[in-house]
């Protein structure tokens, strides 16, 4: 479809100057409903139609997380998320965004991550214009006053204080991240430090907002039952005239981790049991190895019958209290985390059990049945993550950023899904041998104080 034809068919006279309609085939119904385009101010718009129940979700994601915070300004991304949720904007008074969405039976929330911040709401489909009006207003004119800023700072400091004094292993996990990601942007805590937060100014928050909360640095997704032409008109009405801003420099190069074994020990006053955290530094997310690593996660830790789950939490010979982890992806860097708590007498056995299971994966090919099980769980997980209007909107925004960090686009989404379903036992042996090595591992042993 050429541009002129696309405009005619969508009824857009001159709204969007860049238009890319993507047909992703019909292998699953999920990919069939997907299209995306870019407004002239740089805002990426993703539409996902599903003519089921009259429900629509709108998600807006900003490429703005803790990795974008300058040294000494930690916590600014999280603080801004609180202001976006509660402060109001030029035409929307304080708390009105929440009130307007809940009044029509909808629900909303926000999530700040290391590499992005996401705002999302689900509501009856006749209120799409309302949600777009609200989101566009806070994108263009957040009400950044000293009063709102001080309130948000107080809330953040209180949350930090509470979590630091009550959340087991929080301090150890922060230390673990610093070991895994040795540079400031990736290694510092999303929560920020008390000292940095106390020194933040309204000007710091405004600068972060003005730089990162701009259409060039944002993606809007509408998912659910809506009329495509009407939705595009509404997007144009509310977002087209917003100044695009400058696309902030990404500044993060694909970087390979140093292959050096790291082992440290920390004492954690809130630890309820000894713990060991293992981190294997993986390939950048754009690598062809990444889909294979994604499936490996299902073999190691997803589900009750995964290898590490069964080995450590076996009901007849349980040696660990808890096991969690998986792939930790921050922009284009990733780490496989394995977090274990156990009794003092078993903690070493747990660590050895992990390496023993890894050694098995290097030595012998996975059986067809085990590989099929991992793929079935992967499919189920994928379908679950895309099962409601809200889930799809969040998934698509997050996928957009992940694919962009990997040097790809949403057009590659289906191919990525299919690549994972084509992983072979040979691929897995190769990947485990390459990344799950002693010299590629960071170990943090956590002792109770």
């Amino acid at each position: 479809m050429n541009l002129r034809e696309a405009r005619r068919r969508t009824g857009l006279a001159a709204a969007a100057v860049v238009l890319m309609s993507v047909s992703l085939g019909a292998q699953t119904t999920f990919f069939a409903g997907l299209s995306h385009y870019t407004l002239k101010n740089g805002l990426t718009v993703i539409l996902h139609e599903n003519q089921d129940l009259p429900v629509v979700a709108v998600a807006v994601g900003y490429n703005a997380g803790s990795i974008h915070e300058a040294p000494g300004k930690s916590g600014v991304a999280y603080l801004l998320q609180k202001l976006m949720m509660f402060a109001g904007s030029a035409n929307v008074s304080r708390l009105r965004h929440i009130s307007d969405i809940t009044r029509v039976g909808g629900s909303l929330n926000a999530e700040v991550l290391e590499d992005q911040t996401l705002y999302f709401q689900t509501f009856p489909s006749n209120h799409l214009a309302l949600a777009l009006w609200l989101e566009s207003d806070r994108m263009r004119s957040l009400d950044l006053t000293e009063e709102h800023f001080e309130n948000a700072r107080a809330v953040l400091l209180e949350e930090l204080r509470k979590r630091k004094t009550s959340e087991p292993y929080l301090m150890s996990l922060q230390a673990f991240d610093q070991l895994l990601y040795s540079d400031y942007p990736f290694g510092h805590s999303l929560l920020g430090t008390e000292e940095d937060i106390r020194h933040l100014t309204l000007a710091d928050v405004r600068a972060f907002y003005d730089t990162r909360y701009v259409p060039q640095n944002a993606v809007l997704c509408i998912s659910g039952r809506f009329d495509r032409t009407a939705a595009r008109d509404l997007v144009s009405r509310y977002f087209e005239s917003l100044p695009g801003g400058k696309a902030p420099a990404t500044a993060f190069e694909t970087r390979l981790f140093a292959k050096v074994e790291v082992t440290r020990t920390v004492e954690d006053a809130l630890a309820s049991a000894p713990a060991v955290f293992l981190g294997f530094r993986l390939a950048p997310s754009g690598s062809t190895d990444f889909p294979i690593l994604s499936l490996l996660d299902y073999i190691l830790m997803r589900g009750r019958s995964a290898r590490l789950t069964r080995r450590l939490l076996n009901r007849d010979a349980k040696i660990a209290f808890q096991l969690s982890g998986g792939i930790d992806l921050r922009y284009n860097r990733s780490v496989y985390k394995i977090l274990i708590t156990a009794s003092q007498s078993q903690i070493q056995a747990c660590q050895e059990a992990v390496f023993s299971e890894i050694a098995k994966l290097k030595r012998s090919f996975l059986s067809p049945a085990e590989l099929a099980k991992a793929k079935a769980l992967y499919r189920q997980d994928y379908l679950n993550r895309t099962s409601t209007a809200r889930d799809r909107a969040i998934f698509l925004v997050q996928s957009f950023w992940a694919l962009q960090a990997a040097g790809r686009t949403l057009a590659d989404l289906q191919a990525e899904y299919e690549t994972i379903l084509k992983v072979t036992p040979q691929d897995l042996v190769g990947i485990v041998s390459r990344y799950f090595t002693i010299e590629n591992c960071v170990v943090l042993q956590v002792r109770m104080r």
Partner: protein
Amino acid sequence: MRHRLLPVVLLPAVLLFAAASAPGQDERFRQKPPAPEPRPEIRLPRFESSTITNGLQVTVVFRDPAPIMSLFLIISAGEHASPDKIPGLASLASGIFGQGTQLRSAAEIEENIERIGGSFSATADRDVILLSFHFLEEYLDQALELVAEMVLLPRISDREMKIVQSMISAAMSSQERNPVFAANRLLGGQLFRGHPYEKYAFGRAAMRTWTVRDLQDFWDRNIRPNNAQIVLAGAVNINLATRKISHALSTWTPREMARTPLPPPRPPERDRICFIDLPQAGQCAIWAGTVLPPLASAERFSLMALSQILGGSFGSINSRLFLNLREKQGYAWDTGCQSEFFRAGGIFSVRALVRPEYTAASVREMISEIRLLTREPAPSQEIDEAKSILLGGFPLQLDRIDDLAGYVASMKATGAGDEIWSRFAENLIAIDAARILQTAQKFLTQPMVVVIAGSRELCRAALAEFEEVEYFDARGQYIETIKN
């Protein structure tokens, strides 16, 4: 020279243009929220039912496409069916479903469930034991085989019972430190005192009375096809589903069931203040409520609207409790109100998470807000907003296939009918101020039980403001009554 002058000459025009095109200057549509489109029609998935030869009822909720299927097995053997002296037996039985079968260990069953891209859980509530399975659509046959094996060949032994016992005990032990859980559980137990539903509030002490023989008896009496139903949601029709379910489960043998209807609960005899001492709690959870008999449709919807006006089940920021306790008084972090409906009755409750020093003041405000609804009709604006929230939120509850199947399973479990399905909107729209007032006067003038969970030390001054307080420990065991 001309080139140098040009920018100066053009500057005012550029500024003028920039000013005219700046956002907000001629965009009056930004100043007011857009009007909504007409309310969309909700085309609910259709469901059809059948019964196989052994009495097992089957309901299929048709949804296409549905790459994941959701199956609920509902057995009418919730805690009401536990023997009076052995509360918790239904919960134990539900746990046994996850302990493997006579043919395969629990680990093997888990592995088989995961091979079909599946997940499984089993719980017991007041009315039913509920088993839920979610799996990739192409594995319906394999899923039904697993269900049949778990139902027909359970692994009931001392070993399995002890495993379940320790799992329930560990879960309870960690939850008991949570003021919200502790207060909610005690309120349910106190409101249903002397009623079969009281057993749902069983504590860890009750587990000591469990024996394998009791469990086997419970199983033999209750885990029967003529005491059960299957709800299946997915792209499958009723004929095919019935054939497949019959193939998998027709050997499940029925047994004559004693069908004595449960009595309606009796309202509390007097207002009571109960306190659970949780020394580590920095906040106080307050739950106050009363019981409801089985309700006619109009009363049910009136209570739903009324609960929304007061607090909303997820805590509405426009509700009376939120605006009073949080925004006006600054007592509470969170507030809410809900009406829960079971087969033999229900619970109306309000809740708040408050600062300990404002516990007594918060209770007074909460009761006062309830009583106000029994005296004055709610303004139409509040009623319209409550309807809008409930009506708009209805399809949101059904978007995920397991939520859709769960909603229908809950209808079946509690005996609710079409009034909360295809007639949901109609019933809600019919509610008006007079009906709400009438319903409030009928049920909310009853005595209330208030349960507070928090640190006794931090609440000492606030508790002294009540005439009489009954004290309980974290496990829900009565300690003492103190009159002030």
